[in-house]
């Protein structure tokens, strides 16, 4: 290695340095954050597994007194909650966060600090949930928390509050990861990686990210409403006060069914990556698979009511969801046939990862078929709430997620550790897991068909359920031994495993072009991709990008979302305390809300707001090295453009917020048309001229901001301060008008009608307040020279906030005043 090369490597290592000790909390590197997600997910998996074994121990024999019914309720609720919210999705997101930049030829994700923030939210939310077990106050209403069982009347302790606040906190992590992955895939691919050349795994993660952005907000809204009902007495799900418990089921399953596919799709992405590698031929039907993934992503949002077939919905509506539920099997089948055809046409090598792929194919196909059975309304009625559903769910989730995950971990293990797994121990682990799993859950189908209901803590002898339950319990423990063996294999291999050669599986994707394990900056030079098999391209290093790091910036390429051609150089933020500190204060807010210490909660909220503002203020542009323009690459820096990754991230966040808002509108119309005791007062409690004034002020702010952006695009930044003053003034006036509106005589604890109005007004106030605050901060940054015609990238971001706020204001006016008025419900 020449002296110059050594210097270059040392420079790179210095720029991308990850500190240790306490300062490890400041690390934002995607590799570290991805691995933290996965390690934490593994710990939660073990806890969830332990809870599962407690369940199986309890049900192994009839009339067992091993656990009381109350403890059993807590155990099965926490098993589902831990596995769904704390293991499955975070684990897959961690894998995606680790792999995606390496597969698309980037040095890091687009928003490294957001990723770190999401991780800490996940960790703290998980710890809050775990605390409920330690305190023997764990949620006990099932992982779906159906009302009225989870309401304060039937669950008076803090048990349900732990779930509502803890899970909502964890969901913040899911949404931030979704936004980060979405923008990273669209905007940070290496040169030439057009959409048609993206690895299939990246397509799967792209679709999953969009699903997360749209799918999680309904549950976030549901959790907020239920917590408001429990803690503040507001009426949303109480029939007597104009609410409806079925609204919770709708909001939960609007999230819950896409969630199954959110978990399945990344795992299927692993399968689509591994099969061509081990079949030693390209995948059959790349375009058909992409189409199938897109279709699955959409149709999975149209199935939620099949969880509610027994609640009394008209036959025609049930038929819509029944057909859609069967329809979603078609794109899944397309993928399965593409995988089989690839294996058929290739020369498969049955290495260890392929064993798990084989296990996936068998189990998932079986789970998919029972899914089609459950889509049929009469059959669904018969087996509703029996162990048949439990068995189906585990076939889909363990077969569709755990088996591919283990396959993927074995496949990418050389990247993580630089060593190969042990084939012998790994095979034992697989077969024990596979046999144990089928012993447990195949038999459980019959237990369900014999009529054993879910969620019962024990059963009488002589009902025919004794033997199948015993077999399921034995199978559960056999599977446990298998999983333990896999973990042992993974631990041992890191110390004694054979050192991995370069590209040990002869794969064609970019991550294998790196050394194993890769450096923290992934690629010394970002390559140009010419086809779907870049690692087999001898010309891969003929054209390279971003060689220099002497300026001290962390950089990656910003690309055109379609063609993948480089557009700009993205300056990435470095290690920081902000993500940890902000997540910590939000965790304090969460805990103070949980124990209902509201003055402290108000203080924590204020502190969180200040810290989040501080974080947004301290971005890289304030440092001198950030402004040094690159000399070797003829590309502009991202802050010199109007189309930065930040704008895309804001748009994605607004889509998530929009999904929450649409769920709110759904709630309003649902209660209006379905809730039996929903009542409109004689006149609207809101002063419509005041709401109209809010709309006009928001529109004025958006219009003024738009004019400022137009001028800035023309290179004229001179009027920017004046325009921002005017926008901030309009925003402040709108906030004041909203505060006055909130003084309306709303009977929020007596009528769901008024409670929903309050939530909508608070939502609008939140957005108006954030947009106003962002404008004031912009004003200050313009004054200090951080924002100008030469560095305008922040301005369009705040513009989007105003556009969205304006839209929300007018919709609220329409929905709360104009529409009911025209319908004649107010006199």
């Amino acid at each position, binding site marked *: 290695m020449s002296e110059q090369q050594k210097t270059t490597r040392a420079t790179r290592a210095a720029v991308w340095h990850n500190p240790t000790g306490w300062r490890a909390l400041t690390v934002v590197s995607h590799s570290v954050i991805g691995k933290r997600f996965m390690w934490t997910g593994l710990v939660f998996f073990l806890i969830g597994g332990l809870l599962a074994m407690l369940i199986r121990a309890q049900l192994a024999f009839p009339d067992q007194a091993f656990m009381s019914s109350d403890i059993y309720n807590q155990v099965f609720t926490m098993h589902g909650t831990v596995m769904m919210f704390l293991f499955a999705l975070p684990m897959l997101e961690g894998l995606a966060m680790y792999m995606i930049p390496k597969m698309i030829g980037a040095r890091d994700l687009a928003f490294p600090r957001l990723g770190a923030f999401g991780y800490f939210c996940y960790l703290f939310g998980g710890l809050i949930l775990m605390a409920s077990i330690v305190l023997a106050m764990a949620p006990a209403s099932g992982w779906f928390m159906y009302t009225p069982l989870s309401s304060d009347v039937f669950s008076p302790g803090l048990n349900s509050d732990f779930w509502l606040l803890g899970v909502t906190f964890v969901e913040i992590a899911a949404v931030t990861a979704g936004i980060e992955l979405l923008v990273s895939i669209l905007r940070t691919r290496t040169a030439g990686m057009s*959409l*048609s050349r993206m690895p299939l795994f990246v397509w799967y993660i792209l679709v999953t990210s969009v699903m997360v952005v749209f799918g999680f907000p309904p549950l976030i809204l549901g959790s907020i409403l239920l917590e408001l009902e429990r803690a503040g007495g507001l009426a949303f799900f109480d029939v007597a006060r104009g609410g409806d418990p079925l609204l919770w089921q709708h909001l939960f399953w609007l999230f819950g069914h896409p969630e199954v596919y959110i978990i399945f799709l990344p795992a299927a992405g692993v399968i689509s990556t591994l099969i061509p590698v081990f079949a030693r031929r390209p995948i059959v039907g790349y375009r*058909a698979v992409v189409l199938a993934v897109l*279709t699955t992503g*959409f149709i999975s949002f149209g199935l939620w*009511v099949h969880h509610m077939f027994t609640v009394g919905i*008209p036959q*025609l509506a049930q038929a*819509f969801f029944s057909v859609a539920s069967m329809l979603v099997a078609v794109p899944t089948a397309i993928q399965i046939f593409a995988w089989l055809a690839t294996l058929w046409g290739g020369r498969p090598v049955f290495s260890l990862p392929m064993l798990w792929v084989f296990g996936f194919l068998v189990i998932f196909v079986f789970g998919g078929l029972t899914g089609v059975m459950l889509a049929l309304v009469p059959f669904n009625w018969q087996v509703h709430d029996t162990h048949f559903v439990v068995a189906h769910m585990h076939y889909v989730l363990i077969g569709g997620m755990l088996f591919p995950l283990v396959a993927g971990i074995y496949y990418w293990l050389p990247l993580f550790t630089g060593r190969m797994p042990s084939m012998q121990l790994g095979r034992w682990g697989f077969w024990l897991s596979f046999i144990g799993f089928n012993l447990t859950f195949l038999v459980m189908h019959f237990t369900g068909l014999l009529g054993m209901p879910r969620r019962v803590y024990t059963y009488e002898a002589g009902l025919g359920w004794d033997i199948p339950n015993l077999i399921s319990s034995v199978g559960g423990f056999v599977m446990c031994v298998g999983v333990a063996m896999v973990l042992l294999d993974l631990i041992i291999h890191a110390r004694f495993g054979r050192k991995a050669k370069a590209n040990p599986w002869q794969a064609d994707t970019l991550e294998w072009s790196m050394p194993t394990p890769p450096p923290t900056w992934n690629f010394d030079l970002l390559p140009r991709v010419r086809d779907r098999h870049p690692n087999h391209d001898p010309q891969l290093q003929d054209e390279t990008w971003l060689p220099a790091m002497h300026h001290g910036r962390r950089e990656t390429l910003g690309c055109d*979302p379609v063609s993948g051609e480089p557009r700009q150089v993205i300056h990435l933020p470095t290690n920081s305390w902000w993500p940890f500190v902000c997540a910590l204060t939000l965790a304090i807010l969460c805990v103070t809300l949980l124990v209902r210490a509201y003055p402290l909660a108000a203080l924590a909220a204020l502190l969180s707001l200040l810290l989040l503002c501080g974080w947004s203020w301290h971005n890289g542009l304030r440092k001198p090295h950030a402004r040094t323009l690159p000399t070797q690459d003829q590309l502009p820096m991202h802050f010199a453009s109007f189309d930065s990754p930040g704008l895309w991230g804001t748009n994605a966040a607004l889509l998530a917020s929009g999904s929450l808002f649409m769920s709110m509108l759904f709630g309003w119309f649902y209660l209006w048309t379905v809730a039996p005791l929903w009542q409109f007062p004689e006149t609207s409690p809101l002063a419509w001229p005041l709401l109209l004034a809010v709309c006009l002020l928001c529109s004025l702010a958006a219009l003024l901001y738009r004019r400022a952006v137009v001028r800035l695009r023309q290179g004229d930044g001179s009027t920017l301060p004046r325009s921002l003053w005017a926008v901030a003034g309009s925003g402040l006036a709108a906030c004041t008008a909203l505060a006055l509106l909130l003084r309306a005589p709303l009977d929020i604890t007596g009528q769901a009608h008024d409670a929903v109005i309050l939530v909508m007004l608070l939502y609008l106030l939140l957005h108006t307040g954030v947009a106003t605050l962002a404008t004031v901060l912009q004003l200050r940054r313009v004054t200090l020279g951080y924002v100008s015609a030469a560095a305008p990238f922040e301005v369009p971001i705040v513009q989007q906030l105003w556009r969205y706020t304006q839209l929300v204001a007018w919709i609220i006016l329409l929905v709360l005043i104009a529409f009911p008025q025209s319908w004649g419900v107010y006199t």
Partner: protein
Amino acid sequence: MKKGFPLPAVHPLQLPLGLIIWALWFVTVYGGLSVGCAIAQPAAEAGALTWINAVLGLLTIAVSVLLLALARFCMLAAQRGEPPERLFIARLAAGAHVIAALSTLITGLPILVFPPCV
């Protein structure tokens, strides 16, 4: 349509467009059914021959035709000499539109059979 449609066939938003239209149709049909039953519930004896079924059925046909027209629009664009990555989008979008149209028709089939509010 070739000239007038605001979104070119090779625009990446064509990829989700058909399925977004399907999703909007789905929500409209499900929501419309509930609202229809709330405001003017037809007699159960009328079976599927009701004003609600008629409105939902016509909407289903209209949306399917729109989606098929979009598919044709994209397929025609795919036959022109576009750059490869744009061709990829046009072909994929055409496929997505066809799938969305078929999904609409198949999901809408029960409108022909079931009474709306029973």
